[in-house]
Each structure stands twice: as structure tokens, then as C-alpha cells.
């Protein structure tokens, strides 16, 4: 995902690292989409509301996606077992994780070369991504339907540096409606380095 690669430290998801996503499942799917499309196995743990249809729309390969919606009180064991076998683990972190457990999981992650994406805060994350602005198009007052979305994404790296980028959702998603949209709005949908809706800033 070129837009996300631009704001992630190291230019993309690094093996052995953890990333946090605070308030958007869509953003987490966007993180998974690139590696999954390239053939990596992904796993989603503890997220019963994860929509596989939306994931498929992002280009996540469903035949290489493993879901464990209800790990119960064995979250840590299940996540550690998944880290052993899949490349990317997306998980919803339970309320209380002991710091020692978190460190052990991180060690496992580095040893296996997998990447962890957590929904919610995680003490050892390389970067925390959040959606700081969202703008929908296509919906009026009683008319139309949701068509496309602009998201402003902010990544706070663990070094204290934060970067912002804008994501144009139809770039990521595949579907009949997205092609019709790109036909109707050719000026907007013009390649990976698309037109900026918000001024891009790096601080």
C-alpha cells in the first residue's frame, strides 16, 4: 500500500514488529491487504465483528485468512501459536495483558519474523495508526448511497515522529461500483500518487 508505506517507519510492515490501529477496522484491513495479496497467510484473532466481505473487497485472500473470533481466556496462547505459523496477525487486545506476557509475545514475534497488528494500544508497537479525519461521498439527505471515502491517517512512530497521509478508499477496494466511480471522477482517481485532498504534512 504505497500511501501507508509512506507513513510507516521503515516504509512498510516490518517482520517482527507490532503496529497498533486505534479506531478503524478499515485501516487494519488496508494494512493486511498488501501482504495478503502477495500470498502471505493472515490471521484475525478475537474480532467477531470483522467483516470478511469488506476484507475480500480490499484484496485480502480469504483462502489464506484464518479467523479465531472467540479465543476466550486463551488469547495469549492462541496468538502465540498463530504467530508461529502465519505472517501477519491482526488481533483485538484484551483489556489487561501483563507486561511480561507482552514482552514474551514480542520475542516470539521477532524470532518467527511475523508482524502483529493490534486493535487498541499495545505497549511495544512501532507505530500507532489512527484515522483523524474521514469524509464520505455519495450520500445526500435521503438520496444516494455511500460510494467513496477519504481518510486522513496519522501514524505516531515510537520515536515520537508522526506523519499524516490521505487515503482514497476506492484505490484499495475492488468492486463494480469502484470502476464506475473512477470513470465518473477521472481527475480524482489518477494513480497511486493521487491528488491530495488535505495538504500532506510530515512533522
Amino acid at each position, binding site marked *: 500500500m504505497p500511501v501507508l508505506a509512506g507513513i510507516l517507519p521503515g516504509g512498510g510492515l516490518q517482520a517482527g514488529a507490532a503496529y497498533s490501529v486505534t479506531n478503524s477496522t478499515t485501516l487494519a484491513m488496508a494494512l493486511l491487504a498488501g501482504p495478503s495479496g502477495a500470498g502471505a*497467510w493472515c490471521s484475525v484473532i478475537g474480532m467477531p*465483528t*470483522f467483516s470478511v*466481505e469488506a476484507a475480500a473487497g480490499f484484496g485480502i485472500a480469504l483462502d489464506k*485468512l484464518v479467523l479465531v473470533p472467540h479465543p476466550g481466556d486463551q488469547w495469549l496462547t492462541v496468538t502465540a501459536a498463530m504467530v508461529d505459523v*502465519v505472517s501477519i496477525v491482526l488481533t483485538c487486545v484484551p483489556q489487561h495483558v501483563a507486561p511480561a506476557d507482552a514482552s514474551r509475545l514480542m520475542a516470539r514475534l521477532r524470532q518467527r519474523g511475523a508482524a502483529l497488528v493490534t486493535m487498541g494500544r499495545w505497549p511495544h508497537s512501532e507505530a500507532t495508526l489512527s484515522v483523524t479525519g474521514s469524509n464520505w461521498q455519495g450520500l445526500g*439527505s435521503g438520496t444516494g448511497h455511500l460510494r467513496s*471515502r477519504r481518510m486522513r491517517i496519522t501514524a505516531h512512530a515510537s520515536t515520537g515522529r508522526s506523519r499524516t497521509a490521505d487515503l482514497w478508499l476506492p484505490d484499495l477496494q475492488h468492486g463494480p461500483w469502484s470502476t464506475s466511480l473512477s470513470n465518473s471522477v477521472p481527475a480524482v482517481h489518477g494513480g497511486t500518487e493521487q491528488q491530495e485532498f488535505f495538504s500532506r504534512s510530515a512533522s
Partner: protein
Amino acid sequence: MKLPPPGQAAPAAPVSTRSMVLWCPDWPITAALREHLLPAEHPVALIEKGEVFACSPAAREQGVKRGLRLREAQARCTSLTVLPYEPAQDARSFEPVLAAVEKIMPGVQLIRPGLCALHAKGPARYYGSENHAAAVLLKALAAIGLTAARVGVADSPFAAEHAARSTEFLDEPESDSVWIIPPGESPAFLSSFPLEVLEEPALAVILRRLGIRTLGDFAALTRADVRNRFGAEGALAHLKASGLDHHSVVERKPPAELDVVVHCEPPLARIDELTFTLRLSAEKFVDRLREAGLVCTVLSVRLQSESGEESVRSWRHPRWFDADDVLDRVRWQLQGSGNVEHGLRAGISRVQLAPETVEDLSDHADGLWGTGPDENIHHGLARVQSMLGHGAVLTAMVAGGRMLTDRRVFIPWGDPPSEAAAKSRDLPWPGQLPGPAPATVFDQPRPVQVLDCAGGSVDVDERGLLTGVPTVLVTEPPRQSAIASWAGPWPIVERWWDSKGRALNRFQVVDDSGRAWLLLLEDHHWWAEASYD
């Protein structure tokens, strides 16, 4: 180079092999009666493609015969029981017969269900004479309830089969069900048979045009001439007609017993106790398969409790079962049957593990430099499954449907993908959601409130019109936000002819923070179906 004279180039040396053939008349009917536990005098017809394939003697007495249409057969015999013809059932019910024969005379060849051949030499020597051996054989079959069996002994399996079939034409077929053709007399016995018994219709037509009408006429021709004129097939038929079958009896090797049955005495009521008891047996099960060069890919587990309940289930495995996998399946089957965790309603008294599908071990062998990249995925996921249960590790498919929860189908890891789901995806679903799919779909819709500017709840009247403009969205935990834009109502009517059907309205709403919701209005109540977060 010296060519052999044509007459000597027969495929096998024409030697006589004294053979004993056991024939059970009307085997499909016998099998169906035994399978469905019907009395022997019950009129039964087996139907294939709308026509009678076989019928029982009772039905035959009332005029039912092979080739009759189903309706006509039912008109002739009103008490007729009609069953579909299943070749697999024939073979399955003949298995105990073969086992009974093998107990007293080894080396049985199954020709087809209802018909099997043996070497006559060994049994004749052991039991004193061929006559005695045949009597012993019939007695053994009578012990398992087969009284109508016939035995023929002759110089070739072909002649012996027809000797057995000819017992029907003896003076007293009920009492005398053995026909022994003395050595050397098989050609004479066969000579009066018509050409049809060779089951070579093309050959029979030509021979009849040549004025040859019986096997005796055919056998009188010289072998070399038959071979030159009719080729290899003709030569084989000629051998048969001369009472010298080209193939001898091929002995069957009894299949290895691969099932494992464990009796628990006293019955075990705790799952952990049971799996502990089963561990050795599961290892034995897997080892026995491995010794036979096989692996099991579909396992059938049959559990019987002391109160008489029975639970049977087939389990598939993405690769093949090892002992731990077998134990996991037994545990999941117990947990899945609605029993309290670790406590069963009644103790389990018998566990049977049967391989339903076995494959060759060499097809599943690990490679020299490790195995494919997906092998460790199977191992890892199987580990998680053994922790959480079979249904806890899932893969997903997108199916067809109007409601978002219908559109996702979860398949436990290792189970085959659902074909119905893949098929339904391509159907048109009027009322399905346009645009991008929401990223979060709630398992259970969450209650929300949508208010108009006066603070009253927005509703849809019976004409499908809104009673007010949606202005405020109240979500849980109580949080009010203004509605920036919205669309709806989009009516969804599912199965209006059914009492379980639903009629509801769908709305898309974007609140002032830029978060989009998919709302449902059903029965004057608002629910959040999904969220575009």
C-alpha cells in the same frame, strides 16, 4: 526366427482347474431384504431408472418381472415394497458371506456380489470329498441365514457357475442344491447350453449365422481355426465353451481389519478420562494404518453411551489423522453433542474408530527438504483447534444474501468449502447493499435511536414514507451525534410467505464525526447492523 504355430499361442495353458462356485440366487433381493430387515416372503422390487431391476419370489408369483415399469408392477402387486437398487448395498451385504466362507475355506474369489469361486482341490481333500466340502459350505451359509445358496463343482469356474445355476432344473431343487460335474465331463455338460451364456453377443450372432447354436457345436471347432477367424476374444470364448477356463480362481486376500473398537468397562463419564483411555487405542489405530502403508483422511467416530444413545460423525482432515488428531475429534464430538463440559449425560461404553477414506502413505510422505509451506500451517492450526475446539478456527467465504450476517459463511478449518454458499453468491439478491462493504458487522444488531428535530423517534409508515427527517443518532454507550447525511429507507422483504420472514428498512447514516453506520428499522425499533469504521 522360428514362429510358434498359431494354435500354441493361446494366452494361457489350457489346464483344468477344479473349481467350486457358490451362487446365491437373486442376491440383490436377498441383500435388500437383509438390509431392511424384511421377511423373506415379503414382495419386494428393486427399481432402477423407473423399471423393475429385480423382484422377490413373492412378487414374481403375482406377475412382477424384470423390466416392468414401476407403476405397472405396483398395479399387479398392491402390497409391493419398492426400493431403489443400490449396487453398493449388494457388495456390502455379501461381505459377511465371504467372511463366513473364508472361515472354513480360505482363498475365495469374489466374481460379483452373489457369486464367488474357490479352488475345489483343497477343501475336497480336507473334508474327504467334493460332495462333503459342498455340504459343509452350505451348512456354514445356513448358519448365517442363507438357505437358498447353490454350489456347483466342475473343471473350470465357468462350468462350475453354470452347474450351480443348473441346480434349479434338478428334480428336487430344494433338497438337492449341489451339482458336481465329474472331472473331464465339463465339456459334455456345457455342450447343450446356448451361445448366450458366453455373454459375447457379437460373436453369438456370427456363430448362429454359421449354423452353430450350442456351446458343444462351438467347442467342436479346432482351437487354431477359431483363433484365426475370431481373434483372441473368440479363442477365450472357445476355451470357456470347452470347459477349460482361461483364468483360474484368483484368491482374495481378506482386507486388513483397520477399525478399532474400545469397550469401556465401567462406562466413562468424563471426557478427560475417556481421552486418556483412548490414547493407546488411537495410537494403535494410526500404527495399524501405517503398517498397511495407508493414512486416514476421513475418520468416522461412533460413540455409544450406556443408556443406548449413539453418536456417529465423519471427520475430515486437511492432511491425515495422527493419534492426537483422532483424540481431538473424539473430544469435540463429545463436547459438541450438547453435554456439559467434562460431564456427559451418560457414560460412554463403546468407541469405534473407523477409517472412512484411506490414501496411500507415499502420496502424503514428507519431502526430503521439509514439506510444502502450508504443512506447518496445518500443524499450527490443529494445535489451536485442539485448544479451543473444532469450530473455533475458521476460514470464511462470502455467500449471497441480503443481510450482512447471511453474506459470510464460516467453515471450520479442515472442512470442505460449502458449495451452496459459492453458488448463492452469483444469484441476484434484490435489496442487497450497494457500495463498499462495511468493515465491522455486528453479530447481533445493536440497539440505537434515531430522532427527528423534535426529539421523537423516526419511523416509516405503512406506505414506506418517513415520519420525520433523521437528525440525531444515539448510540451505545449513550452518545448523541448529529446526522450529517443519510439515505433510505431501502425496504427489504425476506420470505413474506413464511412466518419466519422479515420486513425491514435499511438506512445509511453518516454522523458529524464522519463515521458511517448501516441502520435497520424493524418493528419500530432501530438497530445498527454494521459500521463503516
